[in-house]
């Protein structure tokens, strides 16, 4: 009880968009995770998100009717009261400059989260774990079957 009482008296001093005198707004991790996932995918040059295992699982999930691919795949977030930190695992297209791409992804993710949730994004760490080469078009093989 004393802990919450202390919190309530401390909170108004550092008021923000989410923490107000009239109450606090909490945003679930999954919300931030999905926003980050969608924002990262918007950037041209990002082929997919997630590590090998996550991507293999999502390939299976794609074949199950009614199941949707996970938007939050490859995204790990840490959400506090007013701040959020994001870690991304991305797969890039061959031919893009990774440094430029990372800058674009970071900017897009930060803008999307800050605009939508009001959380301040303290960091976005990006790990490029693989590259998609023009040759390994495994997905065109399946789409080529029906014309």
């Amino acid at each position: 009880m004393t802990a919450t009482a202390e919190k309530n008296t401390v909170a108004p001093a550092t008021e923000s968009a989410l923490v107000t005198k009239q109450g606090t707004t909490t945003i679930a991790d999954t919300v931030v995770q999905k926003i980050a996932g969608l924002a990262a995918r918007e950037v041209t040059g990002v082929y997919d998100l997630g590590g090998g295992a996550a991507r293999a699982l999502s390939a299976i999930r794609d074949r199950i009717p009614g199941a949707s691919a996970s938007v939050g795949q490859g995204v790990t977030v840490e959400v506090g009261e007013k701040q959020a930190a994001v870690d991304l695992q991305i797969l890039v297209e061959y031919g893009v400059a990774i440094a430029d791409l990372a800058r674009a992804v970071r900017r897009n993710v930060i803008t999307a989260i800050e605009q939508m949730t009001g959380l301040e994004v303290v960091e976005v760490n990006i790990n490029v774990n693989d590259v998609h080469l023009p040759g390994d078009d495994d997905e065109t093989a399946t789409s080529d079957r029906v014309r």
Partner: protein
Amino acid sequence: MTTVAPRAVRRIAAHAAREVDGVGGDVTAEATVDGETTTLDVRLPLAYPAPIASTVERVRAHLLGRTAELTGLGTRRVDITVALARPEQPKRRVR
């Protein structure tokens, strides 16, 4: 912080090496990523009539520029091993 996995660097380097004229086939690359820099070890199959020294130089120059450009990592050195200099299939004299 942006990190690039060695697997990604390796595949970028192998693909970039194939962009050089006269290089084809199974180029394999190993990449050692150390912070912001990378060292490449490329195994390059060359066909028999190709001038090895000049091709290797062109591949090295191309990789130094291209992997740095694509990965954003400084590329310190590129070690190249010329693998199997197998002669091209002789043309058949008769059809």
